[in-house]
């Protein structure tokens, strides 16, 4: 893990990304306008980025693909629950429940 001064430097860098992106047009004022093509392409950034962080965590066990692991099953349960209900707590309950159940009974 990153520690000490380097960890705080990482926080500051992340804070800069928050301020630069959210502040961008609000701080500049009305002068700046993004090209329409860039705006439309940028709409895909969060979905692509979130998924790029999630899928490896669900599919990889110690660095290699394992299509039948507890985290993947839990992830699928989370997707099913999130599609079906708006309640923000349910995916956590079901996801962690499936994760613990499959770890307990299948291993």
């Amino acid at each position, binding site marked *: 893990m990153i520690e000490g001064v380097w960890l705080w430097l990482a926080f500051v860098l992340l804070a800069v990304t928050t301020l630069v992106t*959210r502040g961008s*047009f609000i701080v500049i004022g009305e002068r700046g306008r*993004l090209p329409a093509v860039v705006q439309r392409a940028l*709409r895909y950034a969060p979905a*692509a980025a979130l*998924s790029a*962080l999630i899928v490896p965590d669900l599919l990889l066990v110690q660095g290699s*693909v394992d299509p039948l692991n507890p985290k993947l099953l839990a992830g699928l349960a989370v997707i099913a629950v999130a599609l079906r209900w708006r309640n*923000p707590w349910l995916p956590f309950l079901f996801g962690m429940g499936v994760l613990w159940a499959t770890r307990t009974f299948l291993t």
Partner: protein
Amino acid sequence: MALNPAFREGARAGLRAFVPISVGVIPWAIVTGIAMRSIGMDEFESMGMSLLVYAATAQLGALPLIASGAPLWLIFVTGMVLNLRFVIFSAAVAPALHAQSLARRIIGGFLLTDTAFAVLGEKLAQSHDPVWRWGYYIVPSIYGWVLWQSGVLIGVFGAGFFPRDWSLEFMGTIALLIMVVPMVRSRPMLVAALVGGFGAVLLRGLPLRLGLFAAILLGIAAGFAAEHWHGKKAGT
């Protein structure tokens, strides 16, 4: 300013719209608090991160990188990419706040969240009174900040009560999943997510975790391409 009736009226209208939906933020805040502690950060570091960064997605997304000792530039680039959508939100909100001072615009910008944009964005453009708009935007945004930091605080100090082998860090992945599920309702968005996700798995062997960055770029390109292809097929 706070005594100005237009400001108070705006603030009341903003809170009426914002408070009910803001409840959904609490589990994410608690989970973000737990997730930070579960990778080995102490209470002080966790609260420091939350106060400085104030962005759930970037915070949760950076945690695996921090845990694995990734280079700082990659953490910066990942945070940038995860926050990129705010550039679009910022462009949309900017005209409503342009009458405010620079200091206020910087604070207002820092407090711009997904929830604030989703709930307040549309009405912000409709009022012609800049004072009303400022109240309507900034008061719910400050309330949202307090709510978020309180939730994180509960998670950070509650994390110690949960045993290690419960894999609570997985709640971070669940939170990311909850955010991505409503995003991928359209075909191009789904393509972007699938290419980004499986690209990250396939490219994981690249040095310096560059595979993650490459996968995100591929995902954006694939989503954009799918949108064009989809549009052409539909005859638009």
